[in-house]
């Protein structure tokens, strides 16, 4: 991204859509806010019209513009079980893993809305990469023919595929050969980390969210084209970074939790606070979260999405049922609710950044021992978070403690994280590793390590 590039950040929330214009140096040029309806395209049209009206000369025709969208519509599709992609669920694990079949732990209604069939077939690896059970190609073929016609996507999850992804890749090939290249395949090694059930769940959620993300993408590109804006388009991810549209269509699951993440990142940018607590007061609800080095702190897994246990990182958010429109006792109702939030209970210390339409209530609601920061334009923090977000990629690998292997695994994780950031749209020349975590695993003869790496960079 050139320093002079214009950025548009759009945040479509539950009650309002916000949009901001920023220049390459992070200066706010214009802002807009409109109420949202059910039709996403209409909301985008309205908020873009207002934004362009506020800064009519900001975009020169054909000039470089980067547009980033954050929306809760994708998560909502799951909650409402509407417009989901029907998924054929394949697990490579027999003779193991039958103790809990695929989707067995899902809420029955969601499972019925998502599944085009489930099957465990022979395959999978061991922790050291051995594959004692070859992939049962015939069983995969039989399953694919059984679901052909109903399945709109395939989710494949193999035992230890994060270490040994070959069988999942072979299945993706089989799907192309047997059912054609139009059927998208979500492969678990690209989506989740260790823990077969939680990774499989994330992979199926990913596949079923393809249609909702396509709908959002169509609305956004349509709204931009209608106004003659030739933009690079990005979608927000759950850590507050962004990914290019094509990447989002392959990994829709990364959009879950992105709405909250954007507000958190925007609050950090506006306030200059890198470590602290963010309180986002909306119309009818308040979200509290924690900032660590400018990024949202992750919730301790397993996380739950629409009643499904997964292991993918989501921002840790406490949602309180009060907001600017509901807190009739001024800050009292909010004070009452904030009392129960872990990160605010008792201790002073961490600065509190208050954003959202009702941010002013926070000063009133919190006892005097908290430093409360009320940044200007905090009511459009989500849109600002979208406009300033970098691109990121993550990797998660396990290795034994032998130092050669640890070094090799670290290198591999670094490379994977960087590759993923680049695939998501980051500038290859400016990608950096921003976070490395090593966690020992217990109860083995040889201690092993889990290594997690995050890389970020500006957009190309």
């Amino acid at each position, binding site marked *: 991204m050139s320093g002079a590039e214009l950025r548009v950040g759009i945040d479509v929330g539950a009650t309002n859509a916000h949009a901001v214009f920023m220049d390459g140096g992070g200066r706010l040029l214009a802002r807009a806010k409109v109420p949202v309806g059910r039709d996403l395209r209409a909301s985008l049209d309205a908020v873009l019209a207002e934004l362009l009206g506020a800064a009519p000369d900001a975009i020169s025709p054909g000039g470089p513009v980067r547009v980033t969208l954050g929306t809760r519509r994708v998560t909502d599709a799951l909650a409402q079980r509407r417009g989901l992609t029907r998924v054929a669920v394949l697990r490579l694990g027999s003779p193991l*893993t039958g103790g809990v079949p695929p989707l067995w732990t899902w809420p029955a209604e969601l499972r019925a809305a998502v599944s085009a069939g489930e099957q465990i077939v022979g395959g999978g690896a061991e922790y050291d990469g051995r594959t004692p059970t070859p992939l049962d190609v015939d069983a995969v073929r039989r399953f694919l023919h059984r679901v052909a016609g109903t399945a709109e996507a395939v989710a494949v999850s193999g035992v230890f595929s994060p270490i040994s992804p070959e069988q999942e890749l072979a299945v993706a090939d089989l799907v192309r050969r047997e059912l054609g290249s139009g059927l998208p395949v979500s492969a678990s090694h690209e989506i989740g980390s260790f823990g077969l059930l939680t990774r499989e769940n994330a992979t199926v959620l990913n596949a079923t969210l393809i249609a909702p993300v396509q709908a959002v993408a169509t609305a956004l590109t349509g709204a931009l084209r209608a106004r003659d804006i030739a933009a690079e388009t990005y979608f927000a991810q759950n850590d507050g970074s962004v990914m290019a549209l094509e990447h989002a269509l392959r990994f829709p699951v990364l959009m879950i939790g992105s709405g909250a993440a954007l507000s958190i990142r925007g609050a950090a940018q506006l306030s200059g606070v890198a470590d602290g607590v963010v309180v986002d007061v909306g119309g009818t609800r308040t979200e509290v979260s924690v900032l660590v080095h400018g990024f949202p702190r992750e919730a301790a897994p397993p996380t739950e999405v629409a009643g499904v246990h997964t292991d993918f990182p989501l921002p840790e958010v406490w949602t309180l049922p009060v907001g600017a429109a509901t807190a009739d006792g001024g800050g009292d109702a909010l004070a009452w609710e904030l009392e129960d939030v872990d990160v605010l209970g008792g201790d002073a210390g961490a600065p509190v950044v208050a954003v959202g339409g009702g941010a002013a209530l926070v000063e009133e609601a919190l006892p005097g021992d908290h430093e409360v920061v009320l940044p200007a334009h905090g009511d459009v923090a989500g849109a600002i978070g979208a406009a300033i977000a970098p691109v990121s990629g993550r990797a998660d690998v396990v290795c034994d403690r032998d130092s050669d292997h640890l070094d090799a695994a670290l290198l591999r994780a670094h490379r994977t994280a960087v590759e993923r950031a680049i695939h998501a749209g980051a500038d290859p020349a400016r990608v950096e590793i921003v976070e490395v975590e090593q966690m020992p695993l217990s109860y083995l003869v040889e201690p092993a390590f889990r290594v997690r790496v995050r890389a970020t960079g500006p957009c190309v």
Partner: protein
Amino acid sequence: MRLDDDTLPDLARGCAILGAGGGGEIDLALAMARHAVDQHGPVDVIGLDDVPDDALLMPCGLVGSPTIAAERIPSGDEGLVLRAAVEARAGAPVAALMPYEIGGSNGLMPVVWAGRLGLPLVDADGMGRAFPSLAQLALELSDVHVGSWALTDGRGNVVAVDAADAVWAERLVRGASTTLGGVCAAAPAGLTGAQARAGAIAGSVSRALACGAAPDGTGRLLMEARVTEVARRVDGMRVHGSATLHGTGPDAGRRARLELQSEYLLALEDGDVLAAVPDIIALLGAQSGAPVPAQRLHRGQRVRLIALEAPEIWRSARGLAAAGPRAYGLDVDHAPIAPEPVRVRR
């Protein structure tokens, strides 16, 4: 007493509490147990006193890495393989199953297999909590020696171990579990009803159910706290961790230090013991009430630090030698759990 879809979540929560932060996470084992009773019906629990002297019992569970078990999920049929191996050695039919370790996921695995085999579960276990070593079986303290084990990996491999003593059994079984894929299903072979009565911990399943049904009424509440620091290091074959807890609410101003390996081992305040292994130290999430596994402990969590007395035999001189703080390399003597502080609620 019966274990079904209504009671299994309580049992799981109780097993996690008795796991003292270790023994493997319960979500997966709970899902497997629910699936088993859904497919095969509820599992009956019988008292240890109701087991005939010469009945063959099969204590069982998983040995190895819970992280690997979460990836390499058991098929549920391991119990059939273990039973066949144990019966072949003993020349008698297995009458009932029993957890060898009530703490953590191993408290639930025998439910999975009992459901599939249509056998009852005995209200007892081999440890009364979770321990990292198979040598830490309460049976050994009563001179009921467990040297013979049957192991299977779920791929058709069966390993029979005849060890000279419990320490060798731990070495050999642990080594085999690594070769078998990092985790395997395991059962001591040849335990009779009379031996179990002499050396097993009676009432473990009921205790777990009671703990899980009312976690807040469980044990002593030592401190309401926030985790302010967690440090982990690998030393030899073990992961050592230390955590600092700062008191919150009525415990504001207090500070505790927690030592952990695979389980929570020691809680200290100003150098004094609040609770020490083999007594059971557990952390419950302040809001959820859910037990916090040691592997998932992290900075910022708000928790309730609780402690439960270990079964009496573990607090004997022999028990403390096998499972007291010094058995874990901690330079502290065991002391009884501290009394609950007097708290003034806001």
